[in-house]
């Protein structure tokens, strides 16, 4: 081993086996032996589990014994154990930032096959870290306070649950919902599987609790326009769209709706999936929260032309809740944490034309059926065909529409099997029709789910295993006359069947919102390749994101049913609370700073900063960075045309020495 002179750094290198995770592919002993030859390396070891207590003790002991002043650990992702090893360095009496971690698991053993090449890569990565760590300087951590208020985006069951949990704990919550009412998809459902309790009965009390809660500011018909800041200190601008109703003055009497110059509803009712008509002034549904009306600018004659008798205003009378001059309003609030609960959108059944949605009137999506079977729906719970009167005698439910399909979405939407069986039960109950379920596999893994499946089989609902090929009106026999025919290969019976039915229900899957990428960028979080918001760790940090202080809950993270959504919402609320209760959070010291005597005052950096941490000292005519606001993103460092901005842990010396060492053979 090299014995460096006094002024040179004394580096300790530790190669972790991670059981067989790394050692199964990489020859850890050989890496350690090679690393011992790298410049300034005094100690080089390999060990089974560096993150274990004995592993950490090894580092601490070596620091004392060998007077080490720099440590390199080649193991797993810094996301998992950087904190652990920095802690070990600190306990050993070393500044925790005189440490560099190398990921030879995710970046090496897990992605390569066993062999010399994988071992060589571990050596290269370790050599780069050894070269880099020599330039590390001792740094100090800073803390930032956490603003106690929370913003929740999305007012479905996830957002509602999280909002109530936090508000009940005494935190102030801003709940922002894009639609005119909270409630989300759950508000459209009649019953919930597998217990068949009434969705409205369990949801609407929560909705009104949100509306009435003193700790919740509810902004419906609103969208987040801008997000600035960082954990503990987010500045969010919310755009409140004009509903042409003064919220505080409207009592939800609906007299304006009755009085509207349109005597009958004329426009597609979004809440009923277009199965009924509404007026330009309307309340989405009777239990809407907030329980107030809104005016749709696209269809209201007065908003569009200004030429209307305004019978609504007359009906509102002294309350004067209608205001046609209302404009979009921007609200800026300060919050410490944000929970995204933006949900999903249903798969567009028209993307699979062979299933006939939009072609044959009696092909429905599952959400339309949810409204049809709902007692407060457009038909008051009567399941009838599009003609509005005929009860179907036979119904076919097609599973996996837009799920488990290479042509559309590969994922299982997780809820369709169960809601299809629920709808099968309800349809049978309402109409006594023959109901056929066409499934690939029945996925019923939740509590009471398999029992529900058994119950349905006992009820006489038919289950046919096979992906439906097409829905057609091409009739081949007398019994198919006037019916829709479902063609499917029955993979259990082993032949192709034609099943004539009156009504087809397409069990559409769940997909990310069309604008999920925009939302993700706005909040600076990541998405999986499918477009679902990405959790920090699939098992151990399922509601955290890679951005501190931003959490995710519900179907925006991936398809899930109501119990899982509620559980996740509670978890997200707990994570937010844990930050709030801690009161402050330790910040990485990887902040940027300006070397004033090298700054020409060109101002290039100022607009670059996403955290508005940079300002100009007008006396000295140089840029100044507020280190408390700096998040260490490095944007200004790259932008500074004269290299006068430097960043802790990302000094040019540190980066270039790392690159040079990795390229050197």
């Amino acid at each position, binding site marked *: 081993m090299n014995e460096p002179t006094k002024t040179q750094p004394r580096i300790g290198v530790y190669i972790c086996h991670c059981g067989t995770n790394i050692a199964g592919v990489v020859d850890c002993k050989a890496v350690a032996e090679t690393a011992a030859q790298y410049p300034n390396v005094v100690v080089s070891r390999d060990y089974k589990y560096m993150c274990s207590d004995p592993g950490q003790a090894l580092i601490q002991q070596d620091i004392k014994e060998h007077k080490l002043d720099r440590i390199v650990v080649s193991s797993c992702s810094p996301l998992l154990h950087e904190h652990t090893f920095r802690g070990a360095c600190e306990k050993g009496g070393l500044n925790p930032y005189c440490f560099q971690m190398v990921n030879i698991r995710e970046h090496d053993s897990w992605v390569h096959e066993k062999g010399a090449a994988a071992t060589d890569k571990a050596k290269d990565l370790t050599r780069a870290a050894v070269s880099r760590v020599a330039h590390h300087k001792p740094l100090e951590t800073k803390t930032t306070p956490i603003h106690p208020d929370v913003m929740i985006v999305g007012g479905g069951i996830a957002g509602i649950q999280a909002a109530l949990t936090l508000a009940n704990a005494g935190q102030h919550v801003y709940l922002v919902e894009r639609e005119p009412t909270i409630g989300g998809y759950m508000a459209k459902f009649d019953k919930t599987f597998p217990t068949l309790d009434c969705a409205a009965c369990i949801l609407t009390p929560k909705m009104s609790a949100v509306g009435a809660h003193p700790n919740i500011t509810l902004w419906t018909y609103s969208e987040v326009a801008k997000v600035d800041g960082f954990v503990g200190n987010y500045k969010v601008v919310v755009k409140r769209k004009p509903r042409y109703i003064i919220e505080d003055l409207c009592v939800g009497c609906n007299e304006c709706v009755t009085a509207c110059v349109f005597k009958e509803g004329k426009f597609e009712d979004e809440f009923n999936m277009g199965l009924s008509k509404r007026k330009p002034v309307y309340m989405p549904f009777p239990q809407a929260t907030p329980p107030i009306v809104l005016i749709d600018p696209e269809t209201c004659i007065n908003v569009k032309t200004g030429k209307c008798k305004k019978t609504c205003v007359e009906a509102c009378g002294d309350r004067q809740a209608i205001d046609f001059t209302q404009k979009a309003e921007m609200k800026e609030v300060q919050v410490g944490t944000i929970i995204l609960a933006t949900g999903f959108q249903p798969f567009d059944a028209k993307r699979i034309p062979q299933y006939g949605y939009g072609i044959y009137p009696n092909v429905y999506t599952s959400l339309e059926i949810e409204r049809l079977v709902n007692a407060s729906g457009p038909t008051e719970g009567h399941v009838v065909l599009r003609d509005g009167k005929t009860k179907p005698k036979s119904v076919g439910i097609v599973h996996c529409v837009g799920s488990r399909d290479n042509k559309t979405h590969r994922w299982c939407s997780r809820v369709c099997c169960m809601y299809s069986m629920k709808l099968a039960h309800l349809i049978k109950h309402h109409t006594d029709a023959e109901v056929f379920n066409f499934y690939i596999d029945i996925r019923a893994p939740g509590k009471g789910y398999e029992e529900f499946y058994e119950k349905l089989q006992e009820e006489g609902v038919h289950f046919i295993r096979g992906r439906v090929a097409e829905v057609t009106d091409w009739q081949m026999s007398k019994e198919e006359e006037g019916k829709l025919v479902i063609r499917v290969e029955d993979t259990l019976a082993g032949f192709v069947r034609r099943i004539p039915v009156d009504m087809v229900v397409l069990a559409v899957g769940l997909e990310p919102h069309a604008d999920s990428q925009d939302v993700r960028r706005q909040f600076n979080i990541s998405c999986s390749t499918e477009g679902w918001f990405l959790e920090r760790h699939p098992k151990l940090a399922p509601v955290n994101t890679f951005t501190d202080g931003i959490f995710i809950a519900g179907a925006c993270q991936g398809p899930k049913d109501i119990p899982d959504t509620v559980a996740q919402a509670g978890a997200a609320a707990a994570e937010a609370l844990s930050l709030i209760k801690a009161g402050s959070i330790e910040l990485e010291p990887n902040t940027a700073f300006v*070397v004033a*005597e*090298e*700054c*020409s*005052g*060109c*101002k*290039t950096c*100022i*607009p*670059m900063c996403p955290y508005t941490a940079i300002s*100009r000292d007008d006396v000295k*005519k140089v840029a100044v960075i507020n280190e408390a606001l700096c998040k260490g993103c490095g*944007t200004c460092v*790259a*932008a*500074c*045309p*004269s*290299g*006068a901005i430097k960043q802790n842990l990302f000094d*040019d010396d540190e980066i*270039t020495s790392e690159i040079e060492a990795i390229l050197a053979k």
Partner: protein
Amino acid sequence: MSTKPKIGFYWCASCGGCEESVVDLAEDVLMVVGAVDIVFWPCAMDFKKADVEAMPDKSIVATLLNGAIRSSEQEEMAHLLRRKSQVLIAYGSCAHTGGVPGLANQFTREQIMKYVYEDAPTMVNDKKTRPQTHFKEDGRETELPQLRNVVRALDQVVDVDYYIPGCPPTPKLLKDAVLALLSGKLPPKGSVLAPNIAVCQQCKRNDSKPQDISLTEFKRPHQIIADPEKCLLAQGLPCLGPATRGGCDAVCIQGNMPCTGCFGPVDNVHDHGAKILSYLASTAAGKEQKDITKTLAGIPDPVGTFYRYGLAKCVLRGKVS
């Protein structure tokens, strides 16, 4: 024999502007000529290579060498002058960072030869004759220098003590350097003899620069009549002042022309062009591809804009094959 300090000037791959900049000292040139003994200056005085070879090593106090190193002859002279001089100064952009000749590194030597001796529209050369390093005519043999594969800055060929930047250097920089030499008050070896701070610091228009420029398009100087009071970058001209070493008193900007970067980068910047690219990209507003494309259209020659004087010192060096 004179006891005045001996000074040499030499000219490699450059335009000759640096030589003129010496004369630009105006009446101060008399002070210089009076204070030193010019022992080598082929451009202005009749000395031969053999005269230099005859001098004892380190007998020249300082040689100011301008121009990049492109040919074997220039390389040989650089080595010779290095040996004979106590202090070797890279004078002007070409010696400092490769300069405009360095832009040739975008092409291989073969591409350049082929274009110049075969494809250029003004070339008539049916036999495709190329210059040879050795040829004989009428029984006499001649030797021509060889073109090297790449253009290099002086310090990529020999050890350099100081740099005087600029295309060409301003008389003030030259005068200050000569005075420093005469007084012996020289900064640490390797220094650029100009302030380590960007042009904006000296620019009178700095205060007129808005904090957020967010340019949607870049313009070229001939496309607009620039407001002589306002920051040129804010007017859409890709002024490189923020990314370029100052010390020039922002003379180009005073002349209502944007800075093109001739003083090279400040000490902290390793790759001038990459830094310029990074900084200009930062000032562009576009986030979507179509907006970015529109903005980029205002810079039709990116290498010539970002690396006008520094391609030889670019981390990527040049085209290999």
